[in-house]
């Protein structure tokens, strides 16, 4: 009887050790946030008693999942908080949240008028208008929109790519498609150098991460189901694995789908890979490494671990991949959230907290004197580009730059 009577409720595994509270980046700068332990397992009991106990301050959660990484009892603290927000948070109503959440809609609109939109978004008066009307903080630099979508470029590559005997399906994400097609091109370049062709998924949709954090769960689920269908088609029918270049997209497809959106991805989950991990694991075959020829220049590189990489435990792959470069001096920073957390830092009410959270990282970057700052996450890049004198590079773009073949 006793052995059987073990709780299936994950939040009950919390023994109140409070370690997560120490690792929460928000709690350090915002005392109004109840913190992971308190807003998570503690409040969950109260919410089960009566939903009126829901604390609106949970909106300050970054969903960085550092609490989950810290938890010795394997409590899904971040998921508990996100689920509570999904269930109880006042429904989103702001136009701003809609615009920030729907990255694909915004992207489609903006890429059509990119030459017009980019300079306009950069104008002081536009920033003041965004700040005043939409509460998007005036300090934020909007990522530039591209004039040609990555998908458009890729379609032209389809035939060339199909010639490679080995294939991967690339989940490029909204950022590569609408803002930074170059990163996608860099990925294609590297995979091609390794002898692998890159194809697109059939009808890729936004992974849903900005929709989840802004409360558009129905839309996120719809996207998720559509993506899962495409992923299944690639993995199950064609036996082609999925590779993504965004750490947050990867994390969402693998973990947030089953945990928050109730989408069962068990059959394909292990075939959804982050690019550096996929590449590094190819190198178990030593002949593969020889295919990449790097510059022998001396390089001083610092690497920032994004929260969702930390959560997946996959920063080791990016680090080990970078260490294969000859004459590299690689410094990995003490783990510290950059503070932007996707669309979170764009919101005027979060701007101050966002910058305070990131400050230790910005200081480390400034002190490092590095030639290159490397990080896997696009929103970390926006934050670092805006808040430091350095430009942040995706590991694939960095590799592509120093590739000599």
């Amino acid at each position: 009887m006793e052995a059987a009577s073990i709780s299936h409720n994950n939040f009950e595994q919390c023994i109140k050790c409070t370690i997560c509270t120490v690792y929460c980046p928000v709690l350090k700068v915002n005392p109004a946030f109840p913190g992971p332990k308190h807003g998570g397992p503690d409040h969950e009991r109260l919410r089960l008693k009566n939903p009126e106990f829901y604390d609106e301050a949970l909106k300050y959660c970054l969903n960085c999942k550092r609490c989950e990484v810290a938890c010795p009892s394997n409590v899904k603290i971040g998921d508990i908080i996100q689920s509570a927000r999904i269930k109880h948070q006042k429904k989103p109503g702001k136009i701003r949240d809609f615009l920030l959440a729907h990255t694909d809609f915004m992207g489609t609109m903006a890429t059509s008028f990119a030459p017009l939109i980019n300079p306009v978004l950069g104008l002081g008066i536009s920033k003041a208008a965004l700040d005043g009307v939409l509460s998007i903080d005036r300090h934020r630099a909007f990522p530039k929109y591209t004039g040609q979508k990555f998908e458009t470029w890729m379609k032209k590559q389809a035939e060339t790519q199909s010639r490679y005997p080995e294939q991967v399906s690339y989940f490029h994400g909204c950022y590569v498609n609408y803002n930074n097609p170059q990163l996608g091109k860099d990925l294609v370049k590297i995979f091609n150098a390794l002898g692998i062709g890159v194809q697109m998924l059939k009808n890729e949709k936004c992974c849903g991460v900005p929709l989840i954090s802004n409360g558009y769960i129905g839309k996120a689920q719809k996207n998720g189901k559509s993506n899962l269908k495409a992923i299944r088609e690639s993995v199950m029918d064609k036996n082609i694995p999925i590779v993504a270049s965004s750490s947050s997209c990867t994390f969402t497809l693998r973990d947030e789908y089953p945990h928050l959106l109730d989408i069962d991805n068990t059959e394909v989950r292990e075939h959804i890979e982050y690019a550096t991990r996929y590449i590094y694991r190819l190198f178990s075959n030593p002949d593969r490494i020889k295919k990449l020829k790097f510059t022998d220049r001396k390089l001083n590189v610092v690497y920032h671990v994004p929260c969702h990489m930390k959560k997946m435990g996959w920063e080791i792959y990016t680090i080990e991949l970078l260490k294969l470069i000859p004459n590299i001096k690689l410094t990995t920073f003490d783990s510290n959230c950059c503070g932007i957390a996707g669309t979170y830092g764009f919101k005027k009410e979060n701007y101050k907290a966002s910058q305070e959270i990131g400050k230790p990282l910005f200081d480390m970057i400034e002190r490092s004197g590095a030639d290159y700052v490397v990080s896997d996450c696009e929103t970390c890049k926006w934050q670092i580009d805006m808040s430091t004198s350095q430009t942040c590079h995706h590991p694939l773009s960095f590799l592509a730059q120093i590739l000599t073949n």
Partner: protein
Amino acid sequence: MTHQHFSPYDVIIIGGGATGAGIARDCSLRGLSVLVVERSDIATGATGRNHGLLHSGARYAVTDRESAVECIQENNILKNIASHCVEKTEGLFLSLPEDDLSYQSKFVQSCRDAGISAEIIDPGEALLMEPAANKEIIGAVKVPDGSIDPFRLTLSNSIDAQTHGGKLLTYHEVTDLIINQHTVIGVKAYDFKTKETKYLYANIVVNAAGIWGQHISTYADIKINMFPAKGSLLIFGHRINRFVLNRCRKPADADILVPGDTICLIGTTSIHVPYNEIDNMYVTPDEVDKLIHEGEKLSPILAHTRILRAYAGVRPLVAADDDPTGRNISRGIVLLDHQKRDGLSGYITITGGKLMTYRLMAEMATDLICKKLNIDAICVTATTKLPGSNEKTKEVSTKMYTVPASIRESAIYRHGEMAQDIPNATSISNSLVCECEEVSAGEVHYAKENLNVNNLTDLRRRTRVGMGTCQGALCACRAVGLINQLKKEKNSAQSKEDLSQFLNERWKGIYPISWGDSLRESEYTSWVYESVCGLNSPENTQAI
């Protein structure tokens, strides 16, 4: 020894349970001067050791019509006068495939005959209303059950009695009745704090000591046959059910699952115990197994929910007065006028009954007291709201909008409109002492200053400090420190003793169910207090 030569009280009540506090309130509202003498803290006996079920009476409808009628009447009264102690969850009586469905129609008819609304619900609909219920159910009946917090109820009665001039002595044990020419004229009471014996005088002494009343009456050579029946219960870490869940069958063991405050609990067992063991109640492994096994039939999820603790209480059942064998048990209210029964005036006993009927028992006892004192005053307790239940919670919440939501709602849930008296102006007073149950430093301060708190365990009964999942791991040291700060004479040695006692008392409840996460949590607690803080180290124990 101190002789108290003040003018005597009208009434001395022995026992600070719901009944004692209820009599004190009733008497003081009728203008009598009262003193309650309690050997421990309020609500420490059977009052604080039951389901906390606001019976509709449905459970007794088939077997005990009289109790059922009393229950539904008191149920309606308590929902009105004690709204801050009550949650109107409603209850479902579930029939499982192994139960006889013909019992359901008999049950519904009996309920209606007793004036209890009983509505047959389609099993499918019942499962939508109560997703935690066993999916196998073949029948369901909805009745106006609810939950009631016995600590709050007793406290609120005691507060009202004190507001109307009543006095309360906790940690005073009655060691003798003072008798003069066949009349009880007072009690001798031993004060555990000052270690003095006090002589306290009154025109009427009321024995409201529940199961312990048998012993009290021996001081007057009066025989009352109590029939101690142990009932054990399990507390779960959170609420799994919305409704009170009962089995629709003849009442048996472990067939009530009650949602109360942040938790829910399953009970009870019923085992006759010898009278000399009533101060030493423990829960056996067999009882734990039985409670889980039977409980999961009501709600299968219960078998996979963390158990916080187990506890047992003694039902104050009375052997019928004219039956010396003690076999003929009455579950009803027993009011004994010892002048008529034993030729001893100035002394009455009120016992039997249930938590649900505490107010009615108080009314009956006070009526008799008034008759004996020739006082013509009517009972108003059925219509006069208790302190805390006078304002609507939503309105109180609006007035307290500056306080963080979870702290505010928890405080109002516990104290009703009295929550407004809790200090909340500073971030210190809004900082949390107990994180599981949202008890702020302000609430500890309020309880210490206003609610007769002597130690950590008293504080727990008034605020739920240490009643959450961590069972005191984080809050006990914070709370004991605050209590010590608020004392006129600070005494850290005493605080350490208090802390040890509190944690040991928590462990007593955890021990019978110490496996899985609850065991991990207690390991963590003992690691913090013993290994890190050295609570049991030689220098600390010497100081005590």
